[in-house]
């Protein structure tokens, strides 16, 4: 390990460490613009110059370009270096418009900091400033090129790191311009990172422009809850309003970046229509009165029909505390075991996924970045878990081969092999790969051709559908650190163990082979952990309501009417209930039907735990106390002219606190509820997490996967009793409908964001061009799908690179997908027709 001296202090660093990083370890922050840990060095800005006084490298050098080596003596304050840096910063400020007072970057601007640190104060230059015309880059990012200092961070992030090409450097010399060829919205769903990464104010967060000065913001470490990856964020609030969200570095989860869904998805917490007062049938009331009313009715139902007449329902956006409290109350009261997913098959898949992961298999996103071969089955990363696509891209950049098996048309920002295996045949495809992997680890040599033909048959593919499979198989054999990714939204339940088996087989003869499941929701893992064995499944629950055996339903931060397919049936069933209690921070349709409504806080207002896809328990701190944003409360006048002792709209409490109050009103002693404190509560409900009690919460979260046998860790779904959700394709000419997520416009919380609504696409359905041809359809046709639940109308888009016999529809709020009676759903061809015919 190289040992060197920087500013008279010695340090030993791992080989390959740049001098600029070695200095940072000593707490010496060498000025820099272009160097960024996540993007590496290019040596463009020349700001990091230091003097190498002794050792293998001599003289003035860029510290971001030189590897630390034994015997180096480096001075950051050497006269020559200081003078050099002063010159640089003076040059960089020549063209700066000096508009800091109206620049959103002000206060967090590296250029401001380095101007001061470089010692530049007096402007000597008399010439004209270079100016540019700014571009319209869409609704999320504002562009102000005159502030640019040409560090190439934006283009390196946009093109090299994330793989999109529509923004980059144009022109040369003093005219270098960073932008698009033409004005227009940025194509990358990661564009918001430009805001974080630009060291000046060229790119600023458009929705939050001019809302607050940086130093006035309340800032807190938070966690993104718009998908199961759990990227780390910083929440920024001002005047009782979340103003913006930024990426927060996490070495294990998201690195330096987040996606635009996570960055711009938060406005649901500020919406003027957000319910902030409790309600009963008699109208608005206090939180306490509503709890009392609910308790009274519950007691009555329990005593008349028995406690099993009360059912509870949560969701995968519940905090872990809420999920645990829900389960606890149900147990203590003898109510039905709570469920968390409206689709029983999905609930089973989540439990299967959680039960199949253990510490030796589960991998974080950071580990995906380091994989040398990736197999993804039934997962559409950009749409389901966007940052996973960036992690895969980093693997690709390091030379990994990547294969995606999925019947949907898949886009990823890098070249990969797409095999459009149908969901039904996915398992056999993975088994085929596993056999290949097994053969190779036996060292018996591989008869590629034989095995390939097997895969082709198993996967139900014509061999022409397999682009470059042989080269991929070779890469898979040769890999040292392969990773298997698997989705849960669209796959069959049996695909989850098939993916785990592939990972297990790959692990033979290798140090490591990872497994990563993308789960449906920020805390789907928590829901799976609670192992709601005994929960009948949502459909059965509805049957019980319809038959009258269940008479009360408590819905906690969940909107079944949003998630459930057969909407009309659900509306009818909910109408039959004697009591519907809803707790939520959203003004949801289900909430509007509630007999008793209790407003809850968002995770920006109450600190909460979420467990991400890899079983990492992370804590999002509250950023503000809650209450109606001043802008709304004051009717636009600021400061508000009416002074009052309380905070308007501060009624909502965390869902788990409300649940505890309900429990206490029903007679459960407080020491069994809030008195436990969050850790004990979690430990009591999830026994395997008891060991965490008393743990100090580390910043990178706690990986709660056990090292042991995964089966003991948490139980997978029990064997099916008769009903088969394997989804065998019915005989005849059918289309399988795949309901999918889109990056923007489908996820429950972020689709309420005004800025993202401006970015989302209009919904359309997709099918293979061959299928379209047979049906006589073409691109852009208006199609009607007639189902028992009603009709679904959409525009058709055709593709070649997707499976045949599938119709892909987004869960878009503008599409009537809830007319689908049940998933999986197979429709005969004659139910699909063009609208005019």
């Amino acid at each position: 390990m190289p040992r060197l001296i920087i500013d008279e202090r010695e340090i030993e660093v791992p080989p390959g460490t740049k001098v600029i990083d070695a200095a940072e370890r000593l707490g010496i922050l060498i000025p820099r613009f272009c160097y960024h840990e996540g993007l590496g060095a290019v040596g463009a800005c020349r700001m990091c110059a230091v003097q190498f006084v002794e050792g293998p490298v001599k003289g003035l050098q860029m510290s971001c370009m030189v590897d630390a080596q034994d015997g180096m003596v480096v001075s950051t304050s050497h006269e020559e270096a200081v003078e050099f840096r002063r010159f640089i910063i003076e040059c960089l400020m020549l063209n700066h418009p000096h508009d800091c007072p109206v620049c959103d970057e002000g206060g967090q601007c590296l250029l401001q900091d380095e101007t001061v640190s470089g010692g530049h104060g007096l402007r000597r230059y008399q010439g004209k400033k270079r100016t540019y015309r700014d571009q319209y880059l869409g609704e999320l990012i504002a562009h102000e090129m005159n502030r640019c200092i040409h560090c190439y961070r934006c283009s390196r992030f946009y093109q090299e790191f994330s793989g999109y090409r529509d923004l980059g450097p144009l022109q040369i010399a003093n005219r270098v311009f960073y932008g698009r060829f033409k004005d227009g919205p940025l194509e990358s769903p990661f564009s918001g990172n430009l805001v974080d990464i630009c060291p000046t104010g060229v790119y600023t967060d458009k929705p939050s422009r001019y809302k607050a000065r940086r130093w006035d913001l309340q800032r807190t470490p938070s966690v993104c809850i718009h998908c199961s990856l759990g990227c780390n964020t910083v929440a920024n609030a001002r005047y009782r309003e979340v103003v913006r969200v930024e990426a927060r570095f996490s070495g294990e989860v998201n690195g330096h970046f987040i996606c635009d869904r996570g960055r711009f998805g938060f406005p649901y917490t500020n919406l003027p229509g957000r319910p902030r007062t409790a309600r009963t049938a008699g109208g608005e009331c206090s939180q306490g009165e509503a709890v009392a009313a609910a308790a009274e009715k519950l007691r009555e139902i329990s005593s008349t029909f028995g406690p099993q007449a009360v059912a509870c329902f949560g969701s995968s956006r519940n905090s872990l505390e809420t999920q645990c409290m829900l389960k606890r109350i149900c147990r203590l009261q003898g109510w039905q075991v709570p469920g968390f997913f409206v689709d029983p098959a999905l609930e089973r898949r989540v439990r299967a996924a959680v039960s199949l992961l253990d510490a030796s298999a589960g991998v974080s996103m950071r580990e995906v970045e380091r994989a040398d071969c990736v197999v993804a089955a039934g997962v559409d990363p950009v749409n389901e878990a966007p940052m996973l696509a960036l992690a895969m891209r980093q693997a690709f950049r390091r030379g990994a081969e990547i294969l995606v098996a999925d019947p949907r048309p898949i886009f990823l920002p890098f070249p990969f092999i797409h095999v459009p295996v149908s969901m039904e045949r996915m398992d056999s495809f993975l088994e085929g790969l596993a056999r290949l992997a097994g053969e190779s680890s036996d060292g018996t040599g591989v008869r590629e051709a034989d095995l390939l033909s097997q895969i082709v048959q198993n996967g139900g593919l014509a061999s022409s559908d397999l682009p470059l499979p042989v080269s991929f198989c070779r890469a898979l054999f040769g890999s040292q650190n392969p990773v298997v990714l698997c989705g849960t939204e669209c796959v069959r339940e049996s695909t989850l163990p098939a993916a785990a088996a592939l990972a297990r087989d790959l692990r033979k003869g290798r140090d490591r082979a990872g497994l990563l499941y993308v789960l449906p929701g920020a805390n789907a893992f928590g829901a799976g952990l609670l192992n709601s064995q005994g929960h009948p499944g949502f459909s059965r629950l509805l049957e019980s309501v319809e038959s009258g055996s269940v008479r009360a339903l408590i819905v906690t931060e969940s909107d079944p009417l949003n998630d459930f397919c057969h909407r009309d049936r659900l509306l009818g069933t909910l109408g039959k209930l004697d009591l519907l209690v809803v707790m939520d921070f959203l003004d949801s349709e289900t909430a509007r039907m509630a007999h008793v409504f209790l407003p809850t806080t968002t995770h920006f207002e109450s600190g909460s735990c979420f467990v991400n896809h890899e079983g990492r328990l992370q804590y999002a701190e509250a950023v503000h106390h809650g209450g109606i944003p001043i802008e709304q409360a004051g009717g636009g006048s600021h400061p508000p002219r009416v002074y009052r002792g309380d905070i308007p709209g501060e009624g909502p409490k965390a869902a788990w606190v409300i649940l505890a109050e309900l429990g206490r009103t029903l007679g459960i002693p407080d020491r069994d509820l809030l008195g436990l404190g969050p850790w004990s509560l979690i430990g009591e409900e999830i026994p395997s997490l008891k060991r965490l009690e008393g743990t100090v919460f580390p910043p990178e979260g706690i990986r709660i996967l056990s090292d042991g046998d995964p089966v003991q860790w948490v139980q997978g779904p029990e064997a099916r009793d008769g009903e088969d959700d394997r989804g065998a394709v019915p005989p005849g000419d059918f289309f399988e409908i795949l309901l999918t997520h889109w990056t923007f416009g489908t996820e429950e919380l972020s689709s309420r964001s005004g800025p993202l609504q401006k970015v989302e696409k209009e919904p359309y359905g997709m099918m293979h061009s061959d299928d379209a041809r047979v049906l006589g359809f073409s691109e852009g046709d208006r199609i009607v799908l007639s189902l028992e639940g009603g009709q679904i109308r959409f525009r058709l888009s055709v593709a070649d690179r997707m499976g045949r016999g599938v119709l892909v529809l987004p869960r878009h709020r503008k599409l009537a997908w809830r007319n689908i009676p049940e998933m999986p759903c197979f429709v005969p061809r004659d139910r699909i027709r063009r609208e005019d015919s």
Partner: protein
Amino acid sequence: MHTETISPLPAKGRQLLVCRGTGCESQKANLIFGALKDEIFKAGLADDYKVKFTGCHGLCQMGPTVIVQPPGTFYCNVAPEDVAEIVKVDLVEGGKVDRLLFIDPQSKERVLTYHEMAYFNPQRRIVLRNCGFINPEDIDDYIEVGGYEGIRRALSLTPLEVIEEVKSSGLRGRGGGGFPTGTKWEFCNKSPGDQKYLICNADEGDPGAFMDRAVLEGDPHSVLEGMMIAGYAIGATKAYIYCRAEYPLAHERSLIAIDQATQRGYLGKGIFGSDFDFEIKVKLGAGAFVCGEETALMASIEGKRGMPMPRPPFPAVKGLFGKPTNINNVETFANIPVILTKGGDWFARVGTEKSKGTKVFALAGKINYSGLVEIPMGTSLRQIVDEIGGGIPNKRKFKAAQTGGPSGGCIPAEHFDIPMDYENLTQVGSIMGSGGLIVTDETTCMVDMAKFFLSFTQKESCGKCVQCRLGTKNMLETLTAISEGKATMEDLDLLLELAQDVKAGSLCGLGQTAPNPVLSTIRYFRDEYEAHILRKECPARVCRSLIKFQVNEAACTMCGSCFKACPVGAITWQKKQPAHIDKEKCIKCRSCILACKFHAID
């Protein structure tokens, strides 16, 4: 002229050589070529003469040219209408078309053949050995003069023996850096890698330089052969020629040559029956000067923005697509076949102690004959200017020569006798560079010249480094202020300070050398800068804002030349009267200043 063809030029049969390089082609050389064939056919001489088109022979200024070989009769400025006369008078009647012969600038007499021309005589042509003599689009023509002998010999040696041969020749890279070629090959040979690449740098971005273009247009096979030898020596099986898109003819002829060589089995799998595979592709560059820099060039081939990266890692370790790569200049490669056939020792006997072989210069500026000249290293600047270039027009005095283009510097009159080689040029503050040679006389303003080069580099900076992007602009603004008489002596100091900063802080050669023209003109012509600053005067009368456009009656000889030159009639003059310029009408075009031989216009 001494041409180092590998086999002597074929003696049998007579040839008519029509130059169809870019310069001549643009003046209807294609029509001349066609007309010659017709006329010869009509004259019944088709069996006696072979009409051949060739690449450039160097003296572009006198083009289009037709050479009757033997004896080497050199017809200049030929027009298609002249062809019939040439055939009739020269070929049929055995005379000469006097009016098309070259006139010696000194003796003012007509010169019959190129052998006697002062322009060609002192030259020694190794690189340009075939240019102007063979048909660049016919591989057999190249083979006939000994082409592809070098690669045959190379394949009979081991790669390390080939490298030894090149090392013993002392050949240094002609792309500007002057790095020993054999040593460079050795690095790449020793560098581990499953795939290696070879690149021929034909980006030639220096303003005014066109030697690489001439070689690719006139003798593309010699470059291919040089590349094959290099590929074999370093173990590269794939090669690129990176040719700027502004060279369509060079591009086309390279493609034709590659095609022909592939058909013969000289390129492709197992070339010349050996087990060595070698393929060459041509990649077009979009004409950014910085793309001639090797790391930017490789980025450009990879489809990325052409922007330099720091070295190390050197291309020999991590080059194109991350693989070991060797990159050489066109002229460097063109030397290689000769070294392999005639031997490194033979080559090392040409030139000076540390600079071996010859160098091709693109001679331009205030000189009678501009064009390409190839001279042995060590030839004096005076010989190049006075003898080969025919001296400076209008009997003006030599002031300085600028070598190395925008990266180089000037050589003032006091060093007129300097032997041109790498060491001497560096010592006087200039560089060999890629071969630009611009001659100046007292009508050249050194501030203006520095400004010209700096505005070129300033515009061509890739924009990556702060100093190069902004420092050069700052320097240019200061220079402009000086040329407009708006600067102070402090500005001159600032200029020097900026020059040092730009040199020190830039990543690649472009920025590191951009201040050189400024520094060297300040070094030798500080008085001119001071004249601009202190006296608000441009001694050479070039910087328009400082010219008064006023006749100095004391100096005026009343000759009336200015009166005749003025395009807008702003000058009044009568015999025996000094001229007078009407400032209202004057458009400041400087025609009068250029016309006045007595420096009488202020």
